Every structure is written in C-alpha cells, then in structure tokens.
C-alpha cells in the first residue's frame, strides 16, 4: 500500500547532493502545486459561481475540518471514536449560547471561549474514556471504548434537550447572528466564506504540522505498536489523552464555524447522526493520507446536495451505498487513490 507516510519519510535523511534536490523538487510539485492551486481556486470561486455554490463550498470546508480533526485521533493515533460530534456540538452550542445568552458578540473572543470550553469537556470525558474503558495496549476490549464514545455524544445531546432555558431544548438554538469581527466589521454570507477559508486553512496547516512533529510521530508509533512505544520510554497514555483533547478542539472549531454558518444548533449536532458524518469522512477519505477527509468532505457535501434534489425522500441511502462501494472498490480510501493518481501525473510531467 502506498501512502503519504512512506512518501514523507523518503524525503529527509538523504546524505545530501543531487538525489535530495531532486526529491525536494518532486515533493514540492507533489504538495505545493495542489495546495496553492486549490487555495487560489477557493479564493476566486465566489466571483464566478452563484451564492448557493459558494455556500456549499463553505460547508465542505467546515466538514473537511471536522473530518480532519477525527483523523488526527483515528488515522494518526489509532483511536477510533463514534462520538466525535460531542465536540462539534459542544463548540457550536458554546458559541451560540455565549452570543445569545451571555451577550458576547465579538467573534474572536467567542471563538476562544468556545474552544476553551470544548477542551475542558474533552479533558473531562477523556478521563473515563481512557482510564476506565481504555483503548490500545492494556485495554480489555476497545469495543467498550467505542460504546463509551457513542454514549458521550448521546449524553450531551440529551443534556442539550433537557437544559431548555440555556439550550432551547429539542428545537435547539436559532438566530445566531453573523459574526462580528470587531472594529464594527460584520461578515455577510459572502464574506463569511473567506473567514471560514482563512480559519480552516490555518487549522489544516496547524494539524499538518502536528502530525509531522515529534508529537505526531509518537502518535503514529502508538498506532502501530503501543507496547513498544512504552518500552521505548513514551508515556502513551498522555499522548492518547492529549490527542483526544486536540482532536476535540479542532472538532469544536468546526462546530463553531457551523453554528455561525447555519445560525442554528440542534441536539442532533451532538449525537450519533453528526458523528456519522465525521466517521464517513474518515472512512471514505482514508486514514492514511492527511488530506483524505478534505476530499471526502467535497464528496459528502456534493452527494448530499444532488441526492437531496433527485432523491428527496431517501437521500441518506446514497451515503450508505457510497460507503459500501468505497470499502469494496477502494478499501484504503479515496485519498490513497487520488494520491497515487497525482504521483503518476507528476511523474509523467517530470
């Protein structure tokens, strides 16, 4: 199987000279061109397409961030979670409640507080998740961990229904205004697109740095062989716990952006039905390629749009069909196939 981890390790460690230069040029064409190209495309797109399409692209970016955040935990740390929406919803609800109930209108302050709140929730949930149920070396059975992650999402969504004065009960929060960026600058639907772009781009860059850092490679090691990691001197519990919180914060960030995007937050945004989206994005996108979930988010939002037009009553069926088809035809995920294709293209050009 070819994936980006093998690709990345090919680049360094060369003793210098021509081979390294050629490799560097190759890795530049492999990564820099698509990254800059897609970035520019997203930037100029709203000038040429109707508003509803740029709104779909906004949603793609938010879901892409959501999928990447789960992949940080799952693809790199090897910790699957069926309850990632717990963080998505917590971030979104926190932002909504702070605007509507606490009157914190500044977007940046709201963002920071919502993310802090999500981190605290993740830290609290992480203790039973890793200490009681456990996943990885020494855990009795990872199924208990998975069931616990489902339970966290359902628990929070029930709480959102029950705490009606704060959360609006089962109808949720609505009427979240357009973000106020300070200095009297308020975004509109079309400028919000750029705000999401900037925040998602920065987050993707941060996550890219994290998975390629010393910390990130420790996570990959834990994924591959946790017992060996402990024998080599790594406190694997701490890595798993902190990656859970990190993934939670990025998931919460996607939730905050989503809350401002739609203006509403409902209990289902905390529950299994939203966790499934992240799950789908990672399965379809590939757990081994960094950008996989971003690709999957494009597919997801695209399918959701067309399916809801042509199959209004049964559109969720399509997702199941796509999932089954992907698992049968591309078990490594779409990301791996796209990467292979792109490598072939660049090799042909060089």
């Amino acid at each position: 199987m070819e994936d980006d981890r093998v690709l990345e390790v090919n680049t360094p460690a060369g003793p210098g000279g021509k081979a390294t230069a050629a490799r560097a040029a190759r890795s530049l064409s492999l990564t820099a061109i698509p990254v800059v190209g897609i970035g520019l495309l997203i930037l100029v797109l709203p000038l040429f397409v109707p508003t509803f399409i740029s709104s779909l692209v906004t949603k793609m970016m938010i879901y892409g961030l959501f999928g990447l955040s789960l992949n940080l935990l799952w693809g790199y740390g090897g910790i699957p979670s069926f309850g990632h929406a717990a963080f998505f919803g917590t971030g979104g609800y926190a932002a909504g409640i702070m605007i509507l109930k606490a009157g914190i209108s500044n977007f940046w302050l709201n963002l920071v507080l919502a993310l802090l709140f999500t981190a605290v929730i993740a830290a609290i949930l992480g203790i039973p998740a890793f200490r009681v149920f456990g996943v990885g070396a020494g855990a009795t059975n990872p199924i208990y961990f998975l069931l616990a992650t489902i339970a966290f999402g359902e628990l929070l969504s029930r709480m959102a229904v029950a705490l009606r004065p704060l959360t609006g009960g089962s109808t949720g929060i609505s009427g979240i205004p357009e973000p106020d960026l300070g200095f009297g600058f308020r975004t509109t639907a079309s400028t919000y697109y750029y705000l999401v772009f900037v925040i998602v781009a920065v987050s993707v860059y941060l996550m890219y740095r994290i998975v390629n850092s010393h910390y990130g490679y420790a996570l990959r090691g834990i994924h591959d062989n946790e017992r060996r990691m402990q024998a080599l001197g790594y406190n694997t519990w701490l890595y798993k716990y902190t990656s859970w919180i990190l993934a939670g914060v990025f998931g919460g960030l996607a939730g905050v952006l989503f809350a401002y995007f739609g203006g509403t937050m409902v209990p289902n945004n905390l529950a299994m039905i939203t966790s499934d989206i992240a799950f789908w994005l990672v399965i379809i996108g590939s757990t081994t390629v960094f950008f996989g979930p971003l690709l999957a988010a494009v597919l997801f939002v695209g399918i959701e749009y067309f399916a809801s037009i042509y199959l209004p009553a049964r559109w969720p069926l399509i997702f199941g069909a796509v999932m089954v088809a992907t698992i049968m035809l591309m078990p490594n995920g779409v990301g791996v196939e796209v990467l292979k294709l792109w490598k072939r293209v660049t090799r042909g050009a060089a």
Partner: protein
Amino acid sequence: MALLETNRIFVHFGGLAAVKGLSLSIEPGERVALIGPNGAGKTTFFNVLTGQIRPSSGSVHFKGMDITNHSVYARTHMGMARSFQITSLFPNLSVMVNVLIALQGIRRGRYDLRRYFLKDKELVAIAQELLESVALWDLRDEKVSSLAYGQQRKLEIALPLASSPDLLLLDEPSCGLTPAESSDITSRIRDLGPKITVLMIAHDMDLVFGVAERVILLHYGEIACEGTCEEIRANQMVKEIYMGSRKSVTGTW
C-alpha cells in the same frame, strides 16, 4: 551495589504460579543469561523487570531504587531497555522512522508540536550511526513490514540500544535466525561496550556460551541452578531439565 536486584518475586496467573520466589542480583557490567525450558517463567520474569506485569508479591530494585510499581516508560528513562521475543516493531513505518522514534523516546522534546520530526538533524545523525552499525542504513527508507526476518531481528535489537541503556534485556535475540545470522548477533552483543549490562533469555547455546559470564537455569518459576558457562556445561541437572534426560523420555512415556 547491584544494578538490578529482585527480591522473592511471585507471579500468579489465576491458579498457576509462573514465577515462584525469584531472587537474583546483577552487578554492573555483567553478562547474564537466563535459560530454561518453555514455560519456565523466563519471559514472565522479564515482563516483571520491565513493568509490563506487576508481580503478585516481591520487589524489584534498579540502581538502588524500588521500581516495583514504576511504569514501563519510567523504567526506560531510568536506563532499562528491552527487546521482544516476538518481533515488535513499527511495521507500517520506515526503518529510519523506527529508529528515530526509538531515539526520541528518552530525549527531550518528544512532545514538541512545532518542529518537523524528520528534519531533526541531531536525531537523524545518531540514527545514521546506529543504522550503519547494524548494517541497515541502505534499507532506511524501506517499510519495516517489507524487510526480511533476519533484518527485522537486527532492528529489534537496535531499537533498545537507541536509548543507550545501562541494563539491556534481550528476550531471545536470535530467535528464528539462521546459524550465520545468529553468530552475527552473538558477536554484536559481545561487542557492546562494558558499560552496558546484559540480561538475556536464550535457547541458543552458542549464543549463551558466547556471551554470558553467568548462566541461570529457571525451572517451573524457580532458579534450578546457576553458575559460569563451564559449570553449567558440566552440570548434570541442566542436562536433565534442559536437554531432557533419557530416563524421562523412555521411562515415563
């Protein structure tokens, strides 16, 4: 002062006592081999020393400190390192990354989120030295799962060396190797500096007699006898327990 000292270690798995009151002491710089038939409790005892298993009773002292309840990684930071009988590497990562991760384990900055791991020049330089010493440098970009078994075993022994341990615990280092590969491993272990104390489990008598200064025979979780290589070679009990006596083969069947 002894580097490693165990005091009446018992390990029970349900009704089965795998290790029964093992006390032993290893001086700095010693080369000790643990031998014994399958099920003698050798690997269980190793797991107690490195912290994978907590003993039912008894204590482990390392460098004069009671480490019975220390975690696996804390012991590694104190200067212990081990290899595994069943090859335990990072199969989906490259040889280079395997060694880099091993080197990073006891070094500062292992939680660093900001720097690119593969561009850490200091680590890469040490990794190169280590990989060259085990003749795996040319294979550095290969995925570990694609290596031949003998190469994986070499890497298995290189990983614990990455933390420059004071005590190296080797669990059947030559397990499953050809005689040529095995004698290569033997000479590599013999060539380790005098600062590294070695405790190893081995079935391969060429390895035991080639490396060890002291040999300990375990039988049903207890020390059956111990001595120098010559004493062990001459000992009748070792022959009976370990090689199997003619009587037990013909008599009891």
